[in-house]
């Protein structure tokens, strides 16, 4: 890493600052919120950041229609309400929404498959932005493509709005298996594998060198209980996104707090048992396998 030791020069929006922001979120829980009241509850429960969106994935699924960036007025209200970072979603490829979010003071943009994709060809070129982006992936190729475009953080896509953790597990295990596979590859093998999974070769080399993604990697898409959070952390995730799970449950504040503690103490079954008690009804959810393939959000983006 080159660092100029010039006392007068300030640099903004560098890779180090973007990836560094994501590192500060590690071991934490980012919670989906649709208004300032929910944002306040999330902050009080110990969320590391809130994700502002118009409707939670479960409602987007139920109601249909085009899902877009949240109302800027609500985003500003949320920014004014909480002291923790505020993230917000833009549609895949919708760089104009991302520009608006950046102007509003949003700390990180989630270019998300939960919203209706806006560009059938390209994702946002994230290196053009001063603020960092998080993007979803199902496998190593997708993660590397997003990192190549400038994503400072990756998350599993899972299957949002279901409360079913199986797809998040599938995506995390796929990623782990593919990263492990790199160990045995020589230079030629790396080239072949890069073209096989359609990954930028330089990013793939970075992954091989580090033995993990070069950016923070969270779990998302179907996490609904403290045990789900622990499961994903034990599979090697750096932190957790909870979408519909919290505010679709009987007692959001209680569940939010329990998921935060479960994420920190993910490998301590005694604490997990304690925080999992008496949480009331979890979101009812929907088995991811029951959703027709063309309606699965994870196949949006590429």
């Amino acid at each position, binding site marked *: 890493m080159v*660092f*100029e030791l010039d006392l007068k020069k300030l*640099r903004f929006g560098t890779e180090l*600052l973007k990836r*560094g922001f994501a590192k500060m979120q590690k071991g934490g829980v980012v919670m989906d919120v649709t208004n300032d009241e929910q944002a306040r509850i999330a902050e009080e429960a110990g*969320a590391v950041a809130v994700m502002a969106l118009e409707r939670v994935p479960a409602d987007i699924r139920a109601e249909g229609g085009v899902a877009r960036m949240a109302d800027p007025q609500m985003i500003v209200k949320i920014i004014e309400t909480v002291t923790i970072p505020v993230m917000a979603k833009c549609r895949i490829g919708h760089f104009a929404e991302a520009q608006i979010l950046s102007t509003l003071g949003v*700390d990180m943009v989630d270019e998300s498959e939960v919203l209706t994709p806006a560009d059938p060809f390209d994702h946002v070129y994230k290196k053009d932005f001063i603020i960092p982006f998080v993007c979803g992936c199902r496998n190593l190729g997708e993660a590397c493509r997003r990192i190549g475009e400038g994503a400072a953080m990756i998350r599993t896509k899972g299957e949002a709005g279901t409360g079913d953790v199986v797809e998040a597990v599938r995506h995390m295990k796929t990623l782990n298996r593919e990263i492990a596979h790199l160990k045995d590859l020589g230079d030629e093998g790396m080239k072949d594998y890069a073209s096989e999974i359609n990954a930028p070769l330089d990013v793939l080399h970075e992954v091989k060198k580090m033995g993990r993604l070069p950016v923070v990697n969270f779990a998302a898409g179907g996490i609904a209980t403290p045990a789900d959070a622990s499961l994903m952390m034990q599979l090697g995730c750096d932190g957790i996104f909870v979408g519909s799970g919290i505010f679709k449950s009987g007692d959001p504040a209680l569940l939010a707090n329990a998921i935060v503690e479960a994420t920190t*103490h993910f490998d301590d079954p005694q604490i997990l048992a304690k925080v999992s008690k008496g949480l009331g009804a979890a979101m009812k959810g929907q088995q991811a396998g029951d959703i027709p393939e063309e309606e699965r959000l994870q196949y949006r983006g590429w």
Partner: protein
Amino acid sequence: MRPVEPKRIGVFALQGDVSEHISAMKNAVRSLGYEYEVITIRNKDELESVNAAILPGGESTTIYRLLVNFGLYDLLKERCLDTKMPVFGTCAGMVLLAKEGDEQVRKTETRLIGLVDAKVRRNAFGRQKGSFETAVEIKGLNEPFPAVFIRAPAYEKSWGRAEVLSTFRNNIIMAKQRNVLVSAFHPELTNDIRVHELFLKMVEA
């Protein structure tokens, strides 16, 4: 319970950039030729077992709540005051170690640990788009240090026993008070281990 050999430095692993601090500290230990074990702290026993501790960067409100919920808050304060255990706080850690807070600290009902005679302002340089890198001069280091500020706090004033080690545009960005070291920036995100070495020398003294 007294710490036993080998001597240990613990990084609070509640939330934040824990692994970065662990590897920076391990590099500093190796570079100075000291013999310290570097461990994570998530419960009282682990906190009891260390000779020094690091509060990493992360979200101060989150780290504060987890410190309180798991009984670490009072124990940390007690160990820093009674046994003069050295503690190093970066960013969120710098917020929690200050004596006085700003409106954001009040709003989130965060009780500061209060070991440094200073008033902290959270997000002193604004939101993420205002985050920046620059080089700063630090008292005790010969060459400028690469400083990474991420939604960083700053001390707007200090008094009493606080010793200012670095300022940036009239903000206090690094300070020391007896056994406590704080920085608004993140030395653990760079390959430069001089600040971690500085802390190790405080531990060894």
